[in-house]
């Protein structure tokens, strides 16, 4: 049933209006900056390009995107504002849909019912700018009952100096489906500065399972403000992995999962390596609304160089049978780095809800390094082995390729010495 175009137009106008009103509203967390400095609509090229150069393929690989699409069920790649891939592997036709959000909104009227429903358009100037200047983003839909064994991949790549990306993604896992998505955000090596605003909304229907891994690979002068919301129905489960291993100028993100359906479950895993002068404010929010909901948020952060890392975490329970756990652990690797952990627990009219948290921040123990050295490991090797383990311990459900990336990261950290 097609909706009246006028009705959609009204919704759009209302959203634009709310966004315009919020265009100067600072973010609740994180340092402030002016997104207008990166908006130059004339630079949003729309060249038709059918494939990536060999060099860009390498860049994509670093963020977990395989341009050869080996062992992948579906792929989406957007370079700046241009969509270069939107393909479903033959075997998965009829199980997964993947396309640019513009195309999806044209194809499905009902998609407007999912537009800005888990993230408020007027939350801050970054959501507002995404609405006002949005170009692209992906639409991924796992069809009812489909069990997609091979990962779906997406990559948002930036190749313009001082450019920006403003994307709005929607992911729907229909009833009884299951899938894994690996999503990389990356820049080509010459690009030093830019801004990325990305709104991602997840809808995980009854009995569906979705694992989503986001790998961030920015440059030293990048400003990044992802805005993420997930809504879980009955018996739905959601794993959200976040990996940041490269320096960035300023990054603030606090994804929220709303566990509305009975017995729904969500888990946030974050592995963060703060490097150079990165200013990071990262957290997650689990809202346990439904009965027997379960949540877990586990983060591991290492702060190097002059990085400032703030780890947040919030558990909110509104059901007596809700249980959730928060664990932030931080390791300081340099004298000049700063780290802060702010865990927050809130219970609303649910006196029997069970929430707990554990937070720890400290250096690598000298005693531990020396212990490994007595076995013949050099100081570098010992440090690397400890960091490697620290980043992964307690983190479950991490796809294999990421384990490798984390191991490589640990090696690169310890090469600098402590």
């Amino acid at each position, binding site marked *: 049933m097609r909706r009246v175009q006028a009705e959609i137009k009204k919704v759009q106008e209302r959203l634009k209006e709310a966004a315009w009103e919020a265009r100067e509203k600072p973010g609740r967390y994180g340092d402030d900056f002016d997104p207008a400095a990166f908006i130059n609509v004339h630079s949003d090229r729309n060249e038709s390009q059918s494939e990536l150069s060999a060099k860009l393929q390498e860049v994509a690989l670093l963020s977990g995107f395989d341009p050869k699409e080996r062992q992948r069920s579906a792929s989406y790649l957007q370079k700046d504002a241009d969509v270069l891939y939107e393909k479903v592997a033959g075997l998965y036709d009829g199980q997964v849909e993947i396309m640019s959000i513009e195309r999806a909104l044209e194809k499905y009227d009902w998609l407007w019912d999912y537009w800005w429903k888990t993230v408020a358009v007027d939350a801050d100037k970054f959501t507002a700018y995404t609405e006002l200047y949005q170009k692209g983003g992906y639409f991924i839909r796992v069809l009812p009952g489909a069990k997609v064994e091979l990962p779906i991949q997406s990559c948002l790549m930036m190749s313009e100096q001082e450019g920006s990306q403003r994307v709005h993604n929607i992911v729907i896992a229909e009833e009884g489906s299951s899938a894994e998505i690996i999503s990389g955000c990356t820049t080509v090596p010459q690009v030093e500065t830019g801004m990325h605003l990305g709104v991602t909304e997840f809808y995980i229907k009854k009995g569906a399972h979705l694992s989503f891994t986001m790998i961030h690979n920015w440059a030293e002068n990048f400003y990044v403000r992802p805005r993420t919301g997930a809504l879980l129905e009955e018996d739905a489960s959601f794993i959200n992995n976040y990996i940041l291993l490269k320096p960035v100028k300023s990054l603030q993100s606090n994804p929220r999962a709303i566990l509305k359906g009975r017995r729904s479950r969500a888990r946030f895993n974050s592995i963060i390596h703060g490097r150079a002068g990165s200013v990071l404010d990262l957290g997650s929010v689990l809202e346990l609304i439904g009965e027997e909901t379960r949540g877990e948020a586990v983060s591991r952060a290492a702060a190097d160089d002059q990085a400032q890392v703030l780890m947040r975490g919030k558990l909110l329970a509104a059901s007596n049978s809700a249980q959730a756990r928060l664990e932030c652990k931080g390791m300081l690797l340099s004298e000049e780095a700063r780290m802060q952990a702010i865990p927050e627990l809130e219970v609303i009219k649910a006196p029997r809800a069970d929430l707990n948290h554990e937070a720890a921040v400290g250096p690598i123990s000298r005693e531990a390094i*020396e*212990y*490994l050295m*007595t*076995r*013949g490991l050099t100081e570098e090797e010992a440090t690397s*082995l400890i*960091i490697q*383990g620290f980043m992964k*311990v307690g983190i479950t459900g991490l796809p294999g390729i990421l384990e490798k990336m984390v191991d490589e990261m640990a090696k690169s950290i310890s090469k600098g010495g402590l």
Partner: protein
Amino acid sequence: MLTVEKLSVKAGGQLILDEVSLTIPAGETHILMGPNGSGKSTLLRAIMGLGDLEVVSGRIIFQDRDVTKLPIDERARLGIGLAMQHSPVLPEVTLEGLAQVLGDRYGNDWRPLATALNCDYLLERGLNDRFSGGESKRAELFQLLIQRPQLLLVDEPESGVDLVNIAVVGKALHQLLKQGKIKDREHSGLIITHTGHILDYLNADQGYVMINGKLVCEGNPRDLFEEISKHGFEGCVACAECKRR
């Protein structure tokens, strides 16, 4: 194999070892006894080169090489191995993770060793993370069996170990010191013991008694142990002829 020459060591600004000298020839196992706080562990840690100690004077010669100023890992690669009394907890590093690294480095197949030391069920756990006394010792010796040091330093192998496990520990030490045949014996050991139980599993060649950071007595380890069992360490202090038995 090892010569310690007039070694004086400070920890936290305080003199702990006072001109300690000893020599352990290749293939010999020596036993170190002494009351709590006498400096026994410090001597082993100083030979290994651990960072919380300051060598004030003296030298440590290992296989004709002065290692007094070498970093820990270089000493380990030259062939010195240490099993501490209280090992630090490393929740980040699993026993299996370390075994793999050591297996690759020293070219040893670690799997059968894990089974022999009854360590299989500990492999996925963080090092010494909530290990019992016995588990901790077995895990340490398992690592040393992969490392195969020429000189083995062991701090109280029997502490916190029950009678069943002491046999496992004793057997591992025997294997590490290659004490099978006299003519093959080229691995040396310096072992601290409080209870003397471990003497049932080892062919110990020489014993020392350390009191207040000094070696006050040396001789046949079994005789020394018998004396100490009878008269306590006070007997050693009092014993005037004790210097050279």
